[in-house]
């Protein structure tokens, strides 16, 4: 499928090879970091989007599921118990002299959702990246983000002709106030516009929340 080809053309093996020469350290003055998560099914273009806007070549790493609250034997358990491992990519954008924004590309399937608890709490918001050929891959992510009250926008990564945005909105059962737009994750300007839409959405939902404190 064309959609899979997007992610398979990435020179991924080179990202996994750490080396001091590849590093682009942050400025000494940076003292706080923000995060935005791009979540979606396999092959939808998450890593492509991260790569198109990150100022560093995206890095790739993994997290293993730990059980919250046990405190003692999570990693000891690696020796004996089966664990879930989730790979994810990330990049970053310098905001100003003191702030940096991290962009995570994360799998949206249920078995990988532990990443949210372990890594993505405190995110500004999320982008749900959708392939209209497999809209159902996004159901779980939309459901969980709504449940957590995490602000998000939905971006349809266009791989060719497909259903209208209205049909996508219906298929995802999105409320009217969730921004929905098309993008081409390969293009920096297009990916940037998705993030700009998210930040505008955060600003407007912030005002709403402020009026109605809970």
């Amino acid at each position, binding site marked *: 499928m064309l959609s899979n080809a997007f992610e398979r053309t990435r020179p991924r093996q080179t990202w996994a090879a750490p080396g001091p020469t590849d590093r682009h350290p942050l400025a000494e003055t940076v003292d706080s970091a923000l995060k935005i998560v791009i979540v979606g099914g396999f092959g939808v273009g998450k890593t492509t989007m991260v790569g198109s806007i990150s100022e560093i070549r995206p890095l790739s790493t*993994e997290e293993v599921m730990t059980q919250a609250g046990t405190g003692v034997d999570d990693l000891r358990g690696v020796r004996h118990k089966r664990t879930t491992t989730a790979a994810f990519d990330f990049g970053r954008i310098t905001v100003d002299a003191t702030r940096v924004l991290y962009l995570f590309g994360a799998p949206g399937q249920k078995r990988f959702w532990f990443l949210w608890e372990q890594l993505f709490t405190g995110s*500004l918001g999320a982008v749900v990246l959708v392939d209209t050929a497999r809209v159902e891959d996004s159901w779980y992510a939309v459901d969980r983000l709504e449940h957590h009250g995490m602000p998000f926008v939905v971006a349809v990564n266009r791989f060719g002709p497909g259903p209208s945005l209205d049909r996508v909105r219906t298929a995802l059962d999105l409320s009217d106030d969730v921004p929905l737009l098309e993008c081409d994750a390969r293009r920096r300007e297009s990916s*940037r516009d998705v993030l700009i839409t998210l930040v505008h959405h955060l600003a407007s939902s912030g005002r709403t929340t402020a009026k109605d404190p809970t």
Partner: protein
Amino acid sequence: MRADPLHKEKPDRLYMVTGGRGGADEPSLDSVALIVAESEPSPEMQSEHAAVLRLCARPTAVVELSAELGLPVSAVRVLLADLLDTGAVTARHPAPSTVREGPQHDPDTLKQVLLALQRL
């Protein structure tokens, strides 16, 4: 699937570098907390600890350490707990904004993020 250091390692390495401890006792260390070395690596240090100190000569996010060291984020948190305990590193925590804290994003931060994106 992927030929990266994580997959080549036996799980025993996780056990070795963390001393068998889990990461759940260090929930406060955010995935993008910025770690800064406060001392030089010394020869008697565990090699992973020394590697962290070298990488953190400039502020480095926990997830970046994970990627550079080829270790899961949980394992890196355990290594960092040791180094934080001894004061070998300090952590600059991210701007507070959590899902359940209500109105979280200060307008200035959002404005600066917007400006940064528009500059891309």
